Structures are given as C-alpha cells and as structure tokens.
C-alpha cells in the first residue's frame, strides 16, 4: 500500500505509527500540541494521543533536551522537536556534552534513545536564526547519529528507524521540502537508516548531497544530461555514520565527484567526505573531489539567500571544472 504525501505528512504518519506501536514513545517540543508545530508536522497527534504523549514544553531548548535525557533514563523514548535550526544552540551543551556522552560515561549501562528533530536549511526566505545548516556541529560529536531524509518515503521510514535506535539521533528535516510530495510505501522500509542511496545512475560525474540539496543535484543532473554529461546522484541520507560504499563504488566508475551542501564549506561534512574519498579512491580519481557549499559567512538576510545557497548552476560549474582536469 502506498500513498502520495508531502514530507511533513509523511513525518506525521511516521510519528503516529511510532506512537501507536510503542507506548514509551513520547513527543516533546514547543507548540507541538494543539498547534501541531510551526510546520504542522505533529498536527493532530496530541488530540489522538493526549498531552502526556505529545507534550507542549516550556520555551527552553536546554530544558527540552536535558529533561529528555532523564526521561530516557526512566525508560521513555523521547522524540523532540526543536522549532528551528538556529534555536538548537541553547541546547548545545545538553546535546553534545550530555546526550552524546551519557552512554559512554555509563560504559553502556544507560542508553539514550532520544531523537531530536530539527527543521534545517534555507530556501524559505525566513528571518535570522531560522535558516541554518548546523549538521557539522553534530557529526563532529561522537555519540550522536545524524540523518536527513530528502523525500517522503525516507521521511516516513527514517523517523521510525531513528526512534527505534538505542542511540541519540539528530534528525534533520529539510524544511524547504516539507511540502514536496512523494510516494510513501507504508509497508516496506526501503533501506536501513544509515545507508546512502544512488538515486540517479550516470557515468561521468558523481554528485553527492543530502536533504534539500538532493533536489538541486537532480536538477543539475538533468541540465547536465541536456549538455551531454551523465551524472550519477547519491543521496547521503546518513550524515553520521556516512555510508561510503555507494560513494566509492560510484567514484571508481566515474572518476569524479562533486559534493554539494548548504552549510558553509570550511570544516564541513563536505570537507570530510572529500578528504575520505580522496584517501580511499585516489587512484580512481580523474580530478580532485570538488565542493559546492554555502559561503563562510553567517547565513545572509533572506533577500541574498539565492546568492548564498548552491543552485544547479553552481553545481554545473563544479561539474565543468571537474571535467576540465
């Protein structure tokens, strides 16, 4: 059975199913109750599961994450919503110094099955602190798992897989794509949580990215094809750990890779992936792995985000540079 759903509704359906199947799952965040969250991802869930399963929290991000740690110690599986990417930083200590390390500090005796949902990234013309790409902060922290779906089917399944994980998962939701529809197979999960996926086959250049950037990569691949260049596109899906298998297989065939991300480039996920691919597939490469990213500036005012964010043209420029080696 499948259904055509926007990502926000797919997430809603995934959360609903998790609430139904495990009564230790609970949702907590700001405005997630009657309002259904500012992006309506939790719409209707408090009505159906009650205020003890779907909790409107005080406006305190460190409090949301810190109390979720205690709830997890008490056997719950909290799924948290941080209202916007830029608001996760007040909770940064509780995420990186506490949540990420609790299992390690307890030598495995205490598990932290906590999911932190964060709407992230640009493309929505919002105001300051509402359009950030903080993934590198979390992928840099041992103890956290970090994932990001790019389509409705993954959103539906990956949220459930994240909730099932005994480890803390930072679940990055590409907010620009909340309304993008896709087929959701409600019965068969496609891939494990930490697998990357080839979503378009090609022979000349491997394009890699995650979240909202996947759409842009597909656009670039279509444009490249019209110019006679065949691009393979890989959706990273899991940011920590990275599933390098499909990336390395692909680059060994194409000899070229372009990595695209919204986040600033310096010490970013793209830096890490470029370095690793060059270490592991050096002799297969015809050109250095190139990165297309946001600039190393604070996310600009909305009227400049079109300039800041990588688009298909900037990706194609990198494809051309790669092919020129």
């Amino acid at each position, binding site marked *: 059975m499948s259904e055509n759903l926007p990502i926000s509704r797919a997430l809603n359906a995934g959360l609903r199913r998790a609430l139904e199947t495990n009564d230790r799952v609970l949702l907590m965040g700001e405005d997630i109750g009657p309002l259904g969250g500012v992006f309506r991802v939790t719409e209707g869930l408090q009505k159906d599961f009650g205020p003890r399963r779907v909790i409107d929290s005080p406006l305190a991000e460190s409090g949301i994450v810190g109390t979720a740690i*205690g709830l997890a110690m008490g056997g719950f599986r909290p799924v948290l919503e941080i209202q916007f990417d830029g608001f996760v930083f007040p909770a940064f200590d509780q995420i990186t110094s506490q949540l990420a390390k609790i299992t390690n500090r307890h030598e495995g005796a205490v598990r932290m099955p906590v999911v932190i949902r964060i709407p992230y990234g640009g493309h929505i013309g919002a105001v300051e602190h509402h359009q950030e790409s903080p993934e590198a902060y979390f992928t840099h922290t041992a*103890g956290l798992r970090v994932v990001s779906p790019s389509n409705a089917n993954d959103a539906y399944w990956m949220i459930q897989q994240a909730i099932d994980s005994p480890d803390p998962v930072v679940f990055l939701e590409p907010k620009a794509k909340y309304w993008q529809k896709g087929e959701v197979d409600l019965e068969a999960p496609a891939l494990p949580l930490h697998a990357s996926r080839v979503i378009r086959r090609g022979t000349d250049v491997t394009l890699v990215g995650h979240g909202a950037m996947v759409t842009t990569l597909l656009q670039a691949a279509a444009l490249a094809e019209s110019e006679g260049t065949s691009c393979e596109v890989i959706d990273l899906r899991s940011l920590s750990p990275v599933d390098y298998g499909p990336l390395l297989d692909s680059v060994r065939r194409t000899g070229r890779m372009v990595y695209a991300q919204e986040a600033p480039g310096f010490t970013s996920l793209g830096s890490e992936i470029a370095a690793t691919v060059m270490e592991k597939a050096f002799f297969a490469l015809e050109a250095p792995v190139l990165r297309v990213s946001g600039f190393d500036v604070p996310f600009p005012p909305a009227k400049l985000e079109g300039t800041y964010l990588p688009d298909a043209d900037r990706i194609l420029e990198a494809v051309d540079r790669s092919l020129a080696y």
Partner: protein
Amino acid sequence: MTPLDDPALVRVLAADGTLAPTPAAERYLPLIDALTDAELETFYRDMVSIRAFDVQATNLQRQGQLALWPPSFGQEAAQVGSARAARAQDHIFPSYREHVVTRIRGVDPLDIIRLMRGLTHGGWDPTDPKNGNTHIYTLVLGAQTLHATGLGMGLVFDGKCGTGDPERDEAVIVYYGDGASSQGDVHEAMVFAASFQTPEVFFLQNNQWAISVPVATQSRSPLYKRGEGYGIPSTQVDGNDVLASYAVSKLALDEARAGGGPRAIEAMTYRMGAHTTSDDPTKYRTSDEEKAWAGRDPIARMRAFLEARGASRQFFDDADAEGAALADDVRVRTNELGSIPRAHMFESVYSEAHALIQEEQRWLDDYEASMEGGAE
C-alpha cells in the same frame, strides 16, 4: 545579618551541639523526635567515615594517585541528612562532591576514586540495584538538574508518585551548588519541574564559594528565595546541622513523593577545604572566615550532642576506627587498580555498531599489531 541569621533558617542543633531549635524548626521537631538512638549514631558514623575517606583521597591526589580530588570536608551534615532522608526507591542525582551520599546509597567509594584517577568517566552503573538508584557524577555544573527533572516527569507519567502508598511512591533528589545556581539549566529545570509537578527535591548545598567566587556574586538575594519564584516551596536549612538537614529533606521528599510537586532546599554549609585539589583557598578567603566556620563543624556539633545524650567513649572510638578502616581499604585498593584496555575507548560510544568507530578500532588494532611485529 549573616546568612545564618535569616529568621527562616531551620536549625535544630546550635554550633555547640545543644538542642536549640530556631522558630522555623518547630514544625520539624516531631521528625527528629522520631529518630532512634541507632539512627542518630548512624548519622555520626556516616560523617566521620566519609571525612576519613575524604582526607585519604586528598592525600592520594597529593601523592599522584589521582588526577583531581573535590573534597567534601565540612559538608558532611547536609549530605548525610538529605541522603538518610531518602527512601530506597528514590533516585539520586549528585553533582561531583556528594561522596557520602553515594556511600549511603551503596556505591563503592572506589568507584569515585576510579573516576578521579582517570580510569572512567562514570564509575558505576546507576541501574545496578547495589548502587541504590544513584546516578554518576556530573561535572558540568547544573546539567544534572535537568536529567533529574526529566526522570521525575517520567515518574509522574508512569504514575509512580502520589499513589497514596508511601512504600511505593518514588521521588528524585538532585544536588547542586551555589555556583551552579547561576547556570541556565538549573533555571530551566525548575521551570519544567514546576510545570510538570515532578516529585523532586532540589538540594542546593551553598558552601559559600564557587571556586574563588563568593556566593554574593551568584545572587543578591538568599538562594532559597528563588524557588518561590517558580512556584516551588523552598526552605533554608543549616547544612552543618545533620538533624535539621535530615528533617527538612525528609519532609520535602515525603511531600514530593506523595504528589505535592517539587521542593527546594538551600543548605547553608561551608567547604572547609579547597574547591578541588587544584585550587588554593588562601588566595581568596580569610583565615578568620575559615575559623568561624570551623567553629560550626558538623561533626563536632553532632558529637557534642551525642555526648550530652550519653553516647559512650567506645562509640566514638569505634566510629573513628570505622573511618580509618575505610580509608585504609581505599588506599590499598587504589594501589591495586590496574589500567584499562585500549578497546574500552571504542566500546560504548554507541549502543549499536557505528561504521566509523569500527573502522578506527580495526585500524588501531592493526597498527598496534604492526608495531608489535616490528619489535620482534
């Protein structure tokens, strides 16, 4: 007016050990009257033992056996009173100085030694029944107040408090200090605790100094008054009076356990030693101040009280011997501590396999093997 002159202060024993309840202590006297001789003697023995342990651990640090030691010297009464007030089913969240609290709950003091020696980041398993639901130390100030509050929220959600059955109801007690009271997490914990009416006692040990910074820099008003702002009934107690500390904690825990919501206690005490073995209190406080607080020593106070009640010389000698035995045991076992295998570093970062960690562990194994091979 010194902090100890606040008319709201609950004190039962004067500094010289005579029974001299303050007006605020009147409501607690039945709880103290109910204590048996054996319980009173246990309080004393707890304090004496942990001081002997504390002195031993400080010496071990000075001798290079430990990376650091945070002494509890002087704060024994606040800790013993509150910990003895907790029931077996209650949950304990210490910060990093609650040595006697953990001991009362069953944690092996050597587990704290292992932490301070650099063999672990935790040292004990809070889910192991022998550790009395006692969580590991948290070194980031105030962070554990949120964990305690979350656990308390879970108790509410699971109907594990306020059932009307005090044998079954559970509560949480969380320890933090006057310095930590400035942390945002403590503020957020109190907001959540009040909002969700957690069965929780916030136990603030005001030892007057946050390393070198006096409590006046943390707050211009008595810290216990903050609780009221969150809608949390709050009490100030003489933390060097083990009887008052016990009674105030017992009532607060009983009320929390029964479904009355959170309670806050500010125990006025004094860190007679250094913050940790890394600092030097003579640089920031006067010997007059230290002398004044030495005159309020919680152990001397309780000893005078017990002597006046007729406790025998033998009892005190036995308590001292018990402390000495603990200290000796800790020294012997510290010297026997081995190292940790390198694999330990990789083992519990995640509960399930993580590709990067696995790859790095394999690399290190190969690397070590190649070095061993090269040496042949």
